[in-house]
């Protein structure tokens, strides 16, 4: 038996941890990418803010997207709700509010992780090294927590809400990453196919831990094949279709195979993706395609809320 309130908490705790670890991935890769740029090139930190969709908030607070500003905003800012620091401390306070549901090992890890970023911000170590190191730790700890969830929690409804939250968040972040690569990293269309373009694609793959998979399965870097991996691959755990398949699977486990509105929306989305090729997506227009995707993700999120969480939906009796 899973309380609606607890289901909601699990879902969001999972999303926040996944969100933090995605931002950490993006930060780490951007840092690496900028290190690799020849000295004449301008460093590119603005696109990282674009991924979050919160450029307006950033500009109002920091002005120019310099390296230090962007690092601080995304890692430490205690007021910005999507900073790594805030995501993790939110996850921590949610976990504190459902100690009875989270296994002890998991709780300890989430508890420690939620305190780490604010604690590190008080250290006097060198700023960049510190951020870089934190990114790696957060990525690793998020995976550790995931492993604990997978090894310590029974495959009941709670576990599957955890899984739905994680994969929905991940699908969303992968789509944003793609969006940014297309529209912000290389705005100059003439530069497509240059070494810089390749380097950027390679960095995008890196932040998904997908570069080796790509090279093994698809060879040299070609944009539409990268899109194929990021969107349509059913075997790579960060590809959008993979994530959506996982969401559908868990939704059915939650409802014991009964279909519902959230199931329907995600299944439709999967069918749509299955019927497309990467080339078609690009032809269709990447911008519109990604906008559509993100609208659908929001729809799924709302449907989950209405179906499982909001009191109106659950007064129907046993």
């Amino acid at each position, binding site marked *: *038996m*899973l*309380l*609606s*309130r607890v*289901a909601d908490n699990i879902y969001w705790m999972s999303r926040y941890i996944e969100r933090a670890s995605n931002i950490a991935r993006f930060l780490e890769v951007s840092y690496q990418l900028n290190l690799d740029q020849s000295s004449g090139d301008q460093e590119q930190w603005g696109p990282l803010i674009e991924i979050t969709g919160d450029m307006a908030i950033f500009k109002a607070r920091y002005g120019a997207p310099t390296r230090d500003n962007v690092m601080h905003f995304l890692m430490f800012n205690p007021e910005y709700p999507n900073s790594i620091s805030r995501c993790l401390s939110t996850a921590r*306070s949610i976990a*504190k*509010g*459902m*100690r*009875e*549901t989270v296994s*002890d090992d998991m*709780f*300890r890890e989430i*508890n*420690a992780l939620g305190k780490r970023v604010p604690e590190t911000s008080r250290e006097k170590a060198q700023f960049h090294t510190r951020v870089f190191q934190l990114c790696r730790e957060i990525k690793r700890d998020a995976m550790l927590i995931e492993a604990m969830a997978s090894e310590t929690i029974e495959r009941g*409804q709670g576990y599957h*809400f955890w899984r739905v939250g994680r994969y929905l968040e991940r699908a969303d972040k992968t789509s944003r990453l793609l969006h940014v690569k297309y529209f912000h990293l290389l705005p100059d269309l003439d530069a497509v196919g240059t070494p810089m373009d390749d380097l950027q694609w390679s960095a995008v793959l890196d932040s998904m831990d997908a570069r080796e998979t790509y090279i093994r399965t698809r060879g040299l870097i070609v944009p539409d094949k990268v899109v194929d991996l990021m969107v349509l691959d059913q075997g790579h755990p960060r590809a959008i279709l993979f994530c959506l398949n996982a969401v559908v699977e868990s939704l059915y486990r*939650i*409802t014991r195979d009964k279909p519902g509105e959230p199931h329907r929306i995600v299944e439709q989305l999967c069918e749509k993706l299955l019927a497309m090729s990467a080339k078609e997506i690009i032809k269709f227009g990447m911008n519109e395609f990604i906008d559509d995707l993100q609208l659908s993700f929001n729809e799924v999120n709302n449907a989950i809320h209405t179906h*499982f*969480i909001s*009191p109106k939906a*659950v*007064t*129907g*009796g*046993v």
Partner: protein
Amino acid sequence: MNFEAYETEAFFDELFDNQGHSRESAKLLVNAIESLAEGDLLKRQEASERAMHSMGITFNVYGSGEGTERTIPFDIVPRIIDGKEWDVVEAGLKQRIKAVNRFIDDIYHDRNIIADGVIPEWIFTSSKGYLPQCQGLNPPKGVWAHVTGTDLVRDNKGTFYVLEDNLRVPSGVSYVLLNRTLMKRNFPEVFHKSRVRRVVDYPDQFMKMLHHVAPEGIDRPNVAVLTPGIYNSAYFEHAFLAQQMGALLVEGHDLVYDGKYVCARTVEGLVRIDIIYRRIDDEFLDPEVFREDSYLGCAGMMKAFREGTLTLANAPGTGVADDKVVYAFVPDMIKYYLGEDPLLPSVPTHLCCDDESLEYTLDNLDKLVVKPASESGGYGMLIGPKASQKERDNFARALRKDPRNYISQPTLSLSRAPVVVNDHFEGRHVDLRPFILHRGDDSYVLPGGLTRVALKKGSLVVNSSQGGGTKDTWVVDQGTGQEVA
């Protein structure tokens, strides 16, 4: 670190006799501590405190705003109680809880104890914990107080006295279980040899007791722990118990009354709840019956309780016996209902409503402890010998104004136990809160209980809300253990 310089002074010490020798039951422990390498004990103490932080065993401090998290200070030297002595305490507690439950049931039915002139009627009509709404109700198996946390103290002769009965929502048992976990980690060898009675099965005992008092005809009852939520100072305990018992942890807004049953809102719709172990006070349970502005409970809960579709533990109304005036009559209740002499003495109590006692209290304010009848948590009391003249004058005024609300007791010279203070041991006053689970025909008493310790030098107030700490409590059975060793 050793006990060579440790002074018991004029107090009864839990580990040492007045010659400074360790008590028989504490020998193994004292030897083990003294054989540790220098600094080792402190290291273990610090490791325990770190463990509490990482496990999130923190409580929120009232009135200090969000985000103030503290752990209750934990002292690593356990308090030891001899098994044979404990057996007497245990029998005394069982006897007491049985009588008190009979009393509550009597008060809400025929009131024979009043008709027979044992207790004056005004005692309960003026008690804040008496709920007219509970008149005539019949909780399953006649149990009203399912969980009790009775506070015991020892005087300078080592005699155990009952200080008060916490019959409403006593807290602290999670610390008993967690302290034990930490101690097993810290002193595995001596723990094993000491033959310490186990506490680990408390959640199972609890669940068994609840199943026993389930509504009629329910085979596998759905059990929930009702918490006011994360900002409550005892939230950790609520979550811990729910987790350990395999119960649902619910807040008021998770519940809804469907006209017959109290149900939980789940992802699959409404699911009936059969038993609620509630950790909120009576007045917040049901806004239709008690406080209208309460959002901690659920409207309709009292209907379900009245109709018997829901068991509430503890039952509403138990507070009538959790009143320091009523406390004074518990020995009479034991005689009246059970025809037995009390096995555990109560502290001699003067009821200030009685003119003679009031005068005596006023004349001896510098020697007595004065307590409000219906407060808990150590709030609002006067410890005469420690108070200033001004505080005593203020209390005298309050006493004259509302004598019914006060009792006075002699200031007991509470027993002490050694605690770690930096690099040495010092004696601090302790009390003991055993937990009793009552199921009607029988009771279970958690061996030992929560030892609370007044960490401030000389202080007699052990409440965690007032700077007290805790210790693990070992009830040890001697004889066989040392042969094994």
